[in-house]
């Protein structure tokens, strides 16, 4: 794999770093392919429980690399969309660790993640309209599902950036830490999640994501098979037993 995306797996946590600091981590073909491959590995490798997406050199990602695009490079991955992530996020949890800019496509990568931790210098936004484009990689589709519509509209129509503090106030991000601390904070959060039952974590994510499209009078029925699978799992029994015995559970993942 090229050096433009670095992947490190440690203690079941996969850290994916966009590594093009000379281009503010803009997404070219290599970055998109690299993230896409990492997301596939994340879901395929049973030893990996969770992914973290971050950017090198205190910048998350400034969006699509327009120069590369003009040269004919595609920042899209077949089946996975922009940056190898936006149209098809992984099944396992993914945390964005954001420092500096998360703009345009960079913003869309961040909000395609399940959780976002940001340094207090982070800035978020979809400035596409300023150059006559739209945020087509989920910026418009996801933002209005994640924050109040009126605010999502403001971001989309003005193209103005918001601060980490404002993003936190809106519930767009989970934690703010001092700048430079986002990756560490994401790892801390990741360890809390990886200590939990893997089946339960996977099912919880699945239900929260998929239930967006379920109808009110059918949603409990649709949740039922997932709930039953969890209730019948060895991990559910292990979790309850460990709780009663006041020890840490040993998960088997089935």
């Amino acid at each position: 794999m090229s050096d433009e995306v670095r992947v490190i797996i440690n203690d079941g946590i996969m850290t994916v770093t966009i590594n093009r600091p000379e281009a503010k981590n803009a997404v070219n073909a290599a970055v998109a392919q690299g993230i896409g491959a990492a997301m596939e590995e994340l879901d395929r490798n049973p030893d990996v429980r969770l992914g973290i997406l971050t950017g090198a050199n205190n910048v998350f990602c400034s969006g699509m690399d327009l120069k590369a695009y003009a040269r004919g490079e595609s920042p899209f991955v077949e089946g996975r969309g922009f940056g190898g992530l936006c149209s098809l996020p992984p099944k396992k949890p993914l945390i964005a660790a954001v420092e500096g800019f998360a703009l345009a496509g960079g913003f869309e990568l961040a909000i395609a993640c399940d959780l976002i931790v940001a340094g207090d210098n982070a800035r978020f936004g979809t400035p596409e309209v300023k150059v006559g484009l739209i945020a087509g990689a989920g910026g418009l589709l996801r933002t209005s599902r994640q924050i109040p519509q009126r605010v999502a509209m403001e971001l989309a129509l003005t193209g103005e950036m918001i601060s980490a503090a404002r993003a936190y106030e809106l519930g767009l991000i989970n934690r703010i830490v001092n700048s430079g601390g986002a990756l560490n904070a994401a790892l801390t959060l990741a360890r809390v999640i990886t200590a939990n039952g893997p089946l339960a974590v996977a099912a919880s994510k699945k239900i929260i994501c998929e239930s967006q499209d379920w109808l009110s009078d059918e949603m409990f029925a649709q949740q039922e098979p997932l709930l039953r699978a969890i209730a019948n799992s060895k991990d559910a029994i292990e979790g309850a037993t460990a709780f009663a015995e006041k020890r840490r559970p040993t998960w088997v993942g089935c």
Partner: protein
Amino acid sequence: MQSLVRYELRDDVATLWMDDGKANVMSVAMLAALNEALDRAEKQAKVVVLYGREGSFSGGFDLSVFKRGGPEVLTMLEAGMRLCARLVEYPLPVIAACTGHAVALGAFLLLSCDLRIGVNAGARFHINEVRNGMTLPHLTLEICRERLAPAQLHTATTLGLPFTPASALAAGFVDELVPAYAMQESVLRYCADLLTVDTKSFAINKRRVNAKVIQAMAVAIEEDIAEWKALANI
């Protein structure tokens, strides 16, 4: 019995884990253990972290000592006040990891530290003396005046109102709130930062900044001791 304060020295950071298995009450034994640990840290470390136990930073003085009465009451009261003063005068930076409730002396000890990180849920900050028919020692008020915002100083002390983590942040009980799971990460981050500070100039600056309150505390503790002795003789 297990030690009430576990002392850990790593990479020039001394961490003092207070844990009495309950509310972390400031008994004579706990206060002595803290002083002992501070003595060690002063010789060995560059940064000190004062850590509570899960759910409780400290519940304040050991009320059973008040109930029993006798000379131990005065010993405990004086040791509690002197520990607050010691933290304010202490030459090293002291970070408080406020893992839960900080009540009465627990709150004063917290306020005496240089940097205070609190959990964002499951903590109550309460200067509850007036609610228990007790008088606030003069020394504690000097610390409150130094560290709490003026409006909240009044509601916290005179009215004895409890504070939530969010209102405690606004009042100045804590400098930052974090989820409980992130306390250690946050503490480590501040330690790494404070380790880069020159120890000598830190000590001089801290003493300069705190000069007035240190002086006021020295006067206050004499008043307090005189008051307690007068009360004990009645």
